[in-house]
């Protein structure tokens, strides 16, 4: 009789391990792609969302965690502290993908906005207490603005996240949706999350 696999083993196996590594690398490389196109967005969760949709939430969480670990190891240590945020993104994307969020663009868009709000909730305490609200991102001036109008450090970090993240995540969800529509079915059929697309 076949051994019953845990949820973790089902999503992290020999077939999916290279996909998770690809997703982590894609997250990192997206920074370069965004610079090439000169877009005022981060889009640094596309790999996480893609793998969460194609494999599942655990794989999505691992993708985000390894992307930040690699970024922290080689580029900027600050990324390591934001691993909890990537876990939230991976878990939520995998969950909504199973509910069919990536089957139509008009379901992907609102899920992206909700994802942005969740991401802001998860990142605000880290940004506030670990970095004093400053992360050297382009949105630091928003923290400055919210501090200037009398908000506390945690409120400012949260409001900055709310102002920037939903747009970024909605764009990421839409890009992943359009990406999935353009990848041939012959490839998608070989993936565990084929039913999510």
């Amino acid at each position, binding site marked *: 009789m076949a051994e019953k696999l845990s949820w973790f083993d089902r999503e992290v196996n020999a077939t999916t*391990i290279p*996909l998770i590594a690809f997703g982590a*690398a894609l997250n990192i*490389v997206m920074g370069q792609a965004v610079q090439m*196109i000169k877009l005022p967005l981060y*889009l640094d969760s596309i790999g996480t969302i893609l793998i969460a949709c194609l494999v599942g939430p655990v794989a999505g969480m691992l993708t985000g965690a390894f992307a930040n670990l690699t970024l922290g*190891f080689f580029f900027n240590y600050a990324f390591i502290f934001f691993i909890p945020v990537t876990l939230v993104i991976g878990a939520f994307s995998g969950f909504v993908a199973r509910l069919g969020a990536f089957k139509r663009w008009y379901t992907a868009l609102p899920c992206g906005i909700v994802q942005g709000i969740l991401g802001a909730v998860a990142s605000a305490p880290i940004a506030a207490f670990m970095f004093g609200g*400053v992360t050297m991102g382009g949105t630091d001036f928003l923290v400055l603005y919210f501090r200037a109008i009398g908000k506390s450090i945690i409120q400012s970090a949260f409001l900055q996240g709310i102002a920037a993240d939903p747009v970024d995540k909605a764009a990421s969800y839409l890009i992943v949706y359009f990406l999935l529509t*353009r*990848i041939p079915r012959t490839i998608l059929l070989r993936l565990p999350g084929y039913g999510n697309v």
Partner: protein
Amino acid sequence: MATSDAFITKYNPLHHYVALSIVFAAFAFKLEWQLAILVILLAATVISPRRKLIYRGFLKFVLPLIIIGFFINGLFFAGNTVFTLGLLKFKGAGLLFASRVAVRLVLIVISISDYFSKVKSETVSEYLAARGADRRFIYIFLLSVAMVHLLRDKLQKIYVAQSARGLDTTRNFVTRARYLLPLLVPLSYSYIAESLDRGIALRAANFADKNSRRTKSVTPLLKVSISKTGLILGRTILIAAIAIGASRLFS
């Protein structure tokens, strides 16, 4: 089977236990203790042969963060003004908060960068494997590091090809956003297909099966010789740091 000395690397776990203890201290210790550790750490960094690397990382990532943190928190915290710089009025509470954040950041960054500058990623991977860490995680980490360079090269080639076909980055926001797809689709398509093929190869090698004889008999490329003195000393330092932090919490 005898292993050639060329494949034996020495690993002293004292480095990572000290780094872990400092990260713990950065969160759990009193500010005065943190400052004392910082002074020792800075003195150790000055005589370290890797100081250039550490200073470069510090100047590039941490110093701007600290300066902006002092301005944002010093100017916009509620409380009494402690000094003025032209029109700018800095508040005492804000500067204190910024100082705490700055000390914490400097402690964490110097300890981590010092550790990473001493140890190669391959050695850490082999060490983790030797200590029973899940091979899947180690493989994902090493593969993702390797893939970043491959993906960057591929992306650059696709960008050049798409530019030749008329990709214009001077147009409006929506059009530029749409230009991401001609870059991402070929990149994802080729690497998803390649990852699936790599997955087949891993399955054929019974990679993720913990019970397979083949997995158990795999010999690592490097043999790691772990320093016992470093291990005991490192663990003692970490336990002492946790005890000091915990005593502060419960006092």
